[in-house]
């Protein structure tokens, strides 16, 4: 495995890889901006951005510019941030719980965040971005605590955590359905569908600013604990005997994960399997050490999500497929492969 360290090796190879992924991300975002009912060529997008930055003054179609700035660019950037954040959450949870299947969606954290967000909408506690985030955060934290308590009450074990996650998903999805069916009107019920399947429709610049800050903050904190995460490879006691304050690292990183998930879910709904698929792909490219893995997850996650968003828009003519459907269609077969391989190893 760790394809790159064998193939290229050393800092130069990693630098090249970083450059390559930035280029790919830029191209993916360009494609994301260009795709839609009104196709926009890549160079128009490029000049629209450089014009805005004051580097060039190329005359462009006003409608093109308006579509780029008012709709598509913010959407593509939010997708990139969400992909990066969810992939990061997956990598952190897989390391801390020592389970290759862990990720916010599988553990029910996304379901908890949905419940929180839906309660805010339906129970009418004011639906500004911040209060929605606060509701989603409370919900995701509740789901997290539920999973942690249930798993440790059942005497730990990596598999127990996933089972506890299944229970959490069921519980919080049931709560969401309960709230919707007892309190929501028809319009609200339609709105709620959005949280359950995920959508990048309707995200604009304010959302981008919020998710960018959250993901950068989360990334910085996770990177600070990258070495500590490596030490978890052989379990909690091994990490502890290497001088890691296990409970402190856990609490901080779980909180960071919950915070990132909550922000993302409150914005674009619960999107499954990105946090599962991407860390495994990233591990295949750069190996298991977190100092490399976490940046790789951010890059791969961002590119994956932008591409998935493009797929969701082009796969059906005149219609947008919910993004969660696309990621699930890619993620579930992948999930099965991991499950199958894990079973063989044991």
């Amino acid at each position, binding site marked *: *495995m*760790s394809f790159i360290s064998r193939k290229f090796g050393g800092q130069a190879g990693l630098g090249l890889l970083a450059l390559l992924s930035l280029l790919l991300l830029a191209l993916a975002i360009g494609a994301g901006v260009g795709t839609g009912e009104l196709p926009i060529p890549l160079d128009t997008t490029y000049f629209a951005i450089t014009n805005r930055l004051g580097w060039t003054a190329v005359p462009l179609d006003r409608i093109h510019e308006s579509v780029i700035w008012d709709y598509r660019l913010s959407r593509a950037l939010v997708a990139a941030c969400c992909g990066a954040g969810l992939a990061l959450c997956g990598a952190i949870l897989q390391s801390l719980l*020592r389970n*290759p299947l862990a990720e916010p969606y599988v553990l029910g954290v996304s379901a908890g965040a949905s419940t929180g967000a839906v309660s805010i909408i339906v129970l009418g506690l004011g639906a500004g971005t911040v209060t929605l985030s606060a509701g989603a955060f409370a919900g995701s934290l509740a789901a997290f605590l539920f999973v942690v308590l249930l798993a440790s009450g059942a005497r730990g074990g990596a598999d127990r955590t996933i089972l506890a996650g299944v229970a959490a998903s069921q519980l919080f999805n049931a709560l969401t359905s309960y709230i919707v069916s007892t309190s929501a009107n028809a319009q609200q019920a339609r709105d709620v569908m959005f949280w359950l399947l995920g959508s990048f429709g309707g995200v604009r610049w304010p959302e981008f600013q919020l998710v960018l800050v959250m993901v950068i903050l989360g990334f910085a904190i996770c990177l*600070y*604990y*990258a*070495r*500590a995460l*490596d*030490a978890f*490879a*052989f*379990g909690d*006691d*091994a990490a*502890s*005997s*290497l*001088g*890691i*304050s296990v409970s402190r690292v856990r609490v901080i990183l779980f909180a960071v994960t919950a915070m990132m998930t909550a922000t993302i879910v409150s914005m674009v709904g619960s999107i499954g399997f990105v946090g599962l698929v991407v860390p495994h792909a990233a*591990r295949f490219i750069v*190996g*298991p*050490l977190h100092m490399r893995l976490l940046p790789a997850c951010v890059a791969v996650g961002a590119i994956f999500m932008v591409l998935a968003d493009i797929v969701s828009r082009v796969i059906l003519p005149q219609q947008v497929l919910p993004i969660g459907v696309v990621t699930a269609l890619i993620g579930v077969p992948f999930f099965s492969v991991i499950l199958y391989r*894990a079973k063989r*190893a044991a």
Partner: protein
Amino acid sequence: MTIRAENLTWKAGKTVIVDDVSLAAEPGKMLGLLGPNGSGKSSLLRLLAGLRRAHAGQVTLDGADLSRIGRRALARRVALVEQHANTDANVTVLDVVRLGRTPHRSALSPWTSADDTAVETALSRVGLTERRGQFWQTLSGGERQRVHIARALAQAPSEIILDEPTNHLDIQHQIEILKLVASLPVTSIVALHDLNHAAMFCDRLAVMNKGKLVAMGTPEEVLTEDLLREVFGIRCHIERSPHSGKLHIHYLF
């Protein structure tokens, strides 16, 4: 002066697992910890390594209360080799041994030549220098145990605690690991099952039974037919081996 336990008591729920145990390791010597399954050996080792907090009594390191020493500072002094610590991560031998430098590095400090030296020394000590690039999943049980010992040595500890390091290994690897541990220039505390191996390699022995420490001293003082009958419920005959000069236990039935 080194690791010392004073009247340690530790419970799991209401069950007393370690019951009022006092013992001291001697600097640079190998202390063997014997006892039947469930006698509290592993729990005692975890207490000595600072991984569990005692319900009564204390562990001291050079006279200082272990619970007052920070996690990182402790990890620079005391290394632990667990029983069958395993991972799914696709790490190499070198990755694992490098983990031993964790307590010597801050979160963002670069890798130094001192780190390199420590890792190289540790690898050569366990004879795995040539196999640094090999993946963990491809190693045998004995090799994995040696990698863990190298990782522990890379911590540059003055005390090393090993929980049944020879468990599930074939006889060649058992002897190899014990020879390696006995040759290390550190204080070691080793939980063992094989009484003859304990007699051959350990400088001193401590015997636990039902959570209590029932004997402590040199192998000659500790390994008596009466004690083994009482603790392990076996009949045996003990004599000095003309080949090794150490005690040898013949089991009778």
